């Protein structure tokens, strides 16, 4: 091409001295700085999480007991894991955890969606509502757990009083006593506590949908429900996906809620309760650590599975 011909040939001047190059690289290399910037986070995490976690991994293969941690511990291989997997209580706990997580996350999502939709409307007193919705979130879990134990009480608990006043129940229900109602009661507390977070995330998602897509839909269809199910829902799917993962991670690790409301009780316990009991109350640090590792693996694989499952939708919008 004639352009090429007309290019003058300059000598390629001697590149800057090694030192200058190095200095420049130090000053401007993005990758270098990327790692520098990551350092604090990584170091912190390695210290506060990595090291303890590795410790846990190690102990899970030993017969360590809480009170003899630094005395010599002996390597027992997979014995602890075997012990747990052959313990019926573990499986009960696992089932409870799954049931709990599933129920609460589903309910939270539905409720949160509803609230988000309301918050997304323009109406008087909207910011008041938004504020009100955030209240439960701001209350420390330990405290809200106490509050609810208080309200659940069968004799002088307000819930029974209310239900009976409304004629929903004929006689006081002992919510926390029988496994059936206990699970339900716990889910309600968790839903109450974490729905705001859900609602906020989903609201955020809703506000990402361009206004005119809604308007187009209004012209295309008279029924709000069709618009919701055919347009809104698909468009906030990615958001919901993210929200669900955040919540599921927490729900699967739920601890203080159960701990405060019903204590260490096998038939309504969760895996974390199980782990704590083994670690702290039974001194069996090896077994407890093994349990923790199992929980980690369980949640981890769950997360990966989930991420993989929602990947396609996430690319959509």
């Amino acid at each position, binding site marked *: 091409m004639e352009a090429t011909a007309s290019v003058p040939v300059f000598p390629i001047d001697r590149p800057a001295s090694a030192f200058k190059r190095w200095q420049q690289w130090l000053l401007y290399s993005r990758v270098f700085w990327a790692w520098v910037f990551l350092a604090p986070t990584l170091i912190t995490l390695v210290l506060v999480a990595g090291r303890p976690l590795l410790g846990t991994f190690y102990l899970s293969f030993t017969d360590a007991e809480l009170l003899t941690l630094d005395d010599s511990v002996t390597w027992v291989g997979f014995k602890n894991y075997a012990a747990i997997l052959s313990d019926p209580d573990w499986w009960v706990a696992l089932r409870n955890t799954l049931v709990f997580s599933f129920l609460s996350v589903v309910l939270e999502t539905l409720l949160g969606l509803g609230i988000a939709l309301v918050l997304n409307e323009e109406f008087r007193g909207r910011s008041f509502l938004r504020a009100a919705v955030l209240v439960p979130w701001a209350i420390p879990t330990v405290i809200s757990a106490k509050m609810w134990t208080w309200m659940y*009480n*069968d004799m*002088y608990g307000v819930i029974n009083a209310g239900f009976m006043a409304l004629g929903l129940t004929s006689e006081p229900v002992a919510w926390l006593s*029988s*496994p059936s109602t206990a699970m339900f009661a716990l889910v309600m507390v968790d839903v109450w506590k974490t729905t705001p977070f859900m609602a906020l995330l989903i609201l955020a998602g809703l506000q990402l949908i361009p206004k005119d897509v809604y308007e187009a839909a209004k012209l295309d269809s008279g029924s709000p429900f069709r618009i919701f199910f055919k347009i809104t829902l698909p468009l906030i799917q990615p958001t919901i996906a993210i929200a669900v993962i955040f919540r599921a991670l927490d729900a699967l690790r739920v601890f203080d809620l159960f701990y405060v409301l*019903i*204590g260490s009780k*096998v038939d309504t316990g969760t895996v974390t309760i199980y782990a704590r*009991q083994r670690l*702290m109350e039974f001194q069996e640090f090896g077994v407890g650590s093994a349990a923790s590792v199992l929980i980690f693996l369980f949640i981890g694989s769950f997360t990966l599975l989930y991420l993989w499952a929602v990947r396609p939708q996430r690319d959509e919008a």
Partner: protein
Amino acid sequence: QPTANAAELTISCGSNGLERQICQSGIDAWSKKTGVPVKVFSSPNDSNDRLALYQQLLGAKSADIDIYQIDVVWPGILAKHLLDFETQVSAKEVSEHIKGAIANNRVDKRLVALPWFTDGGVLYYRADLLKKYGLSVPSTWEEMGSVAKVIMDKERASGATDTWGYVYQGRAYEGLTCNALEWVASFGGGSVVEPDGKVSINNPKALKAIDLIASWTGSIVPPGTLSYSEEEARGAFQTGKAVFMRNWPYAWALLNSEGSTVKGKVGMAPLPSGEKKGPRAATLGGWSLAVSAYSKAPKEAVDLVRYLTSAEEQKRRAIEGSFNPTRFALYDNKEVLAKNPLFKDLKAVFLNAVPRPAGKTGAKYNRVSADFWNAVHQALSGTEKAGPSLKRLEEKLTSYSNGGNW
């Protein structure tokens, strides 16, 4: 006599509130005497949290706390890390304490703690109602059941529809172990794990006991009881919703406090027995003081412990805070009785209180207890019949009883 050197002590006693104050004043007195400064660490209210924390500290050989206030069931767990008192304290001094308490604090020939104050389950009843229906305080569990039924029905008929017969600590936690142990023991069903390490729980008498109580759930015992700990039970009883209640002596003062619905209408008695004339059982509760093996000033620490558990200090505590002394002499002491007339009856209760199988099972106690209360809870809530439930429990315990040597 320890001299005022650089040593400084940290003691964990009580938590906030009255308990804390009284503990404090005792310590101050000692500090004044010896000139050794003492820091008071108030520990978590929930004894599970408390134990966990102590384990962390001791496990890490920490010298942060010199003197621990430990529950009767902990000596077995913590023994390794606690100082031995045998050599420090004269046999005479030891013998002045209630035997059960001392026995409880001995772990393989080491006296790891000195008893500080004791506790035991008692039966509260609505004196007014018994009077009203001309009934007397029941002496056996069956009797109590029927009495409760009668009064409950009558009361309900006469409008108080939310009246129940009996409340206890039915939540799945240590408290239930105490309750259940009382039932079993009072039927002569042993103490779950016998002193010789044998697992004894699966026997007809124990079964009888559990079955009886379980049969009450929903009839005279409100279902909610299965999630009660001490305070919930007290709440129910104090608001006049129950005729009988199993609880610790602490409730007495509160039940008779200002604004209490049942003020002056309450009576207290030893818990019923299984058969007529059978043994009455109260689970041994209470707290002892132990010195950490990692304390930097063991001499001072031991001295403080001895001071706090001494007769005069316990007397003061009994008078000021009605803490039940572990020195039985004090139960006949005029001044003490003047302040707590109840001690007359309680003495009996405490003297033959049943210790939980903590001594033998040692570090495994918590597990034993948890398995026990879970089994009982399932029986009470009817998710499983008592028979199979106890059978499984037996197998479970045996499985890690290490052939009775634990």
